[in-house]
């Protein structure tokens, strides 16, 4: 794999190639001075950590009171296989779980549907019914861990399954009928807007999709008050090609849309806003990324206090998860990805993230092996315990360049937010294809810069050399067979009449104004499958198809 350095490697360093712009194409000055931040007012624009507008972080003591949660996104194959990976991650010192579902689950299809062919268990774990959720968390006390579930269009269905598993475990423990939901903590991504914008795993059209989201807001505010209902996600927006400013702007504008829909549904803003969290990308441009997180906190604090008149400081505080940039990883010279990920993770920590996923070195090739996933976790532990960066809150506060970039990103994001406001909101902007087009343009510009070698990617368009293939994880078709067999068992064992009645009630409720969450819980308890539940909703709302534009 490695070779001795050659003369070319040890020769005097050449001047950096390319133009001096950030990875988003933002020009950088050679030097920043007090003149660049002359309008900055400490109390107004920064404040101490823990003080409005939270530019410097939401905790007065930074990470001294509590480190970020090291939350590694994992899921593949059968629920049993993923359960084993979770047990391993927890044993290795991971502090939270994060479920990756396969495409049939994300798209609300059973494993025996024609479109599921070849997809079962490939990109994540397959969860078709409550029986799979029970297997996924077998031997894991859901009251003692926090679980994040990356699920969007069928988010309320997976949340219902998780709540029923919590209920089962609580009943076993106490013998009573206490569901244990009051203290249950975790997150559903449940961010359908970014699916329309970037990741494209949508089922229903935007408006009924938003109804499902507001149903979870109302249900959790009353029943599961510690559940983080929506993780408003810029990650996928960035991966699809957005610049840092576009990621910031579209994500925060999505957040605004959810808050507005919640208020319009009759909820008190302070009853649900504290349980909204965010999820950002950490790309390779360190200063720009740190500035992005700081700008995000400042914008959100003002939006919540000034635009929505929230009075609970917890509504003003933007909490976020971060994942390092999968899109920056290369299939060429995969060990280089360890370094990229470490630097990106460092940016997230310097920016004050509340939780972090570090990508594995093999993720441009396949889902990670167990060894690669452990190394990714160790990367975070080294940052936390060896580098000293976790000892000081907002260490870049006052840096001329980072403060200038924080302000510039804020200005650019606010201009986008205003544009989308003028369109009538994010749902309307999506229907026009506006954010989709902006992102596609940025993605193409970036690729052109790479082709013209304006942007160097080590091992891809510069410093190229052959490397030995590394060992990767291969998911075979036995997973699909296993899941098809369990589906058959579930269908044979359950009471068909109870299932049918629950699905009929769901369909009727979706056609009216009733909250769909209790109806889904009943269907889940009856072991209805995800495909059956989603089909009931498809019959009422139809399916969304985007206009394909290049």
């Amino acid at each position, binding site marked *: 794999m490695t070779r001795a350095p050659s003369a070319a490697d040890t020769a005097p360093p050449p001047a950096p190639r390319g133009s001096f712009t950030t990875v988003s194409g933002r020009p950088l000055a050679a030097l920043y001075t007090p003149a660049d931040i002359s309008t900055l007012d400490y109390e107004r624009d920064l404040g101490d950590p823990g003080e409005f507008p939270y530019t410097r972080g939401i905790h007065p003591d930074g990470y001294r009171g509590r480190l970020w949660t090291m939350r590694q996104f994992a899921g593949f194959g059968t629920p049993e296989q993923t359960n084993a990976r979770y047990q391993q991650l927890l044993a290795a010192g991971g502090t939270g779980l994060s479920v990756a579902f396969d495409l049939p689950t994300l798209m609300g299809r059973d494993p025996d549907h024609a*479109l599921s062919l*070849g*997809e079962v268990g490939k990109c994540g774990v397959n969860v078709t019914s409550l029986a799979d959720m029970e297997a996924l968390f077998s031997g894991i006390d859901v009251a003692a861990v926090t679980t994040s579930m990356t699920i969007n269009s069928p988010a309320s269905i997976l949340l219902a399954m998780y709540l029923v598993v919590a209920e089962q475990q609580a009943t076993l423990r106490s013998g009573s009928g206490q569901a244990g939901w009051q203290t249950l903590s975790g997150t559903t991504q449940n961010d359908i807007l970014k699916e329309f914008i970037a*990741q494209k795993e949508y089922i229903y059209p935007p408006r009924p999709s938003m109804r499902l989201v507001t149903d979870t807001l109302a249900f959790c505010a009353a029943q599961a008050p510690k559940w983080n209902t929506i993780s408003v996600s810029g990650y996928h927006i960035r991966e699809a090609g957005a610049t840092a400013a576009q990621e910031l702007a579209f994500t925060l504008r999505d957040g605004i849309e959810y808050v507005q829909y919640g208020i319009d549904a009759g909820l008190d803003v302070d009853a649900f806003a504290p349980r909204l969290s965010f999820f950002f990308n950490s790309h390779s441009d360190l200063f720009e990324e740190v500035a992005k997180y700081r700008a995000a906190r400042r914008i959100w604090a003002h939006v919540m206090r000034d635009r929505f008149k929230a009075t609970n400081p917890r509504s003003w505080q933007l909490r976020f998860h971060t994942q390092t940039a999968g*899109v920056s990883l290369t299939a060429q010279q995969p060990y280089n990805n360890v370094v990229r990920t470490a630097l990106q993770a460092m940016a997230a920590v310097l920016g004050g993230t509340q939780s972090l996923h570090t990508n594995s070195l093999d993720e441009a090739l396949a889902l990670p092996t167990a060894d690669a996933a452990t190394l990714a976790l160790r990367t975070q532990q080294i940052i936390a315990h060896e580098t000293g960066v976790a000892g000081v809150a907002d260490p870049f506060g006052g840096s001329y360049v980072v403060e200038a970039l924080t302000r510039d990103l804020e200005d650019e994001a606010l201009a986008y937010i205003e544009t989308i406001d003028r369109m009538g909101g994010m749902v309307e902007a999506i229907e026009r294809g506006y954010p989709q087009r902006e992102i596609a343009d940025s*993605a193409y510009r970036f*690729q052109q810069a790479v082709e013209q070698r304006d942007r160097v990617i080590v091992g891809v368009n510069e410093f190229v050399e052959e490397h030995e293939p590394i060992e990767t994880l291969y998911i075979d078709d036995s997973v699909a067979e296993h899941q098809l067999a369990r589906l058959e068992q579930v269908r044979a064992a359950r009471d068909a009449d109870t299932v049918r009645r629950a699905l009929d009630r769901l369909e009727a409720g979706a056609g009216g104004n009733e909250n769909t969450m209790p109806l889904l819980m009943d269907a889940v308890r009856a072991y209805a499958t995800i495909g059956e539940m989603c089909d009931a909703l498809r019959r009422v709302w139809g399916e969304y198809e985007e206009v394909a534009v290049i």
Partner: protein
Amino acid sequence: MAKIRVVIAKPGLDGHDRGARVIARALRDAGMEVIYTGLRQTPEQIVAAALQEDADVIGLSILSGAHMHICPRIMALLQEKRLQDVLVVVGGIIPDVDVPKLRAIGVRGLFLPGTPMQEVVDFIRTNARSRVESL
């Protein structure tokens, strides 16, 4: 010479379309006629689109790991419709062990992460069936 006609498709359930869209633009900017089918196309829909559009090339973007199910089906359908001279290329995440299997069933171009757009353009120009303007 008439323009090379390319159908770019995203089969399967995956929605990550950055690669498909970037390549579609690159081929269009290189002077080809590009038809992008949009998301979640079945093999049947993709082959029907190729037939209807009189395509010289089918470009598939697959990241989800379903390629060993999707590609054989598409190649069989092309045989059935007597479209064997349509050049099939695949871009995406393809494990090394599957590369020879895909070549064996007639997928001629395989482009893994990091491939320059120009390489794809050149490959298609060299390998697409020749299309002489009939006057």
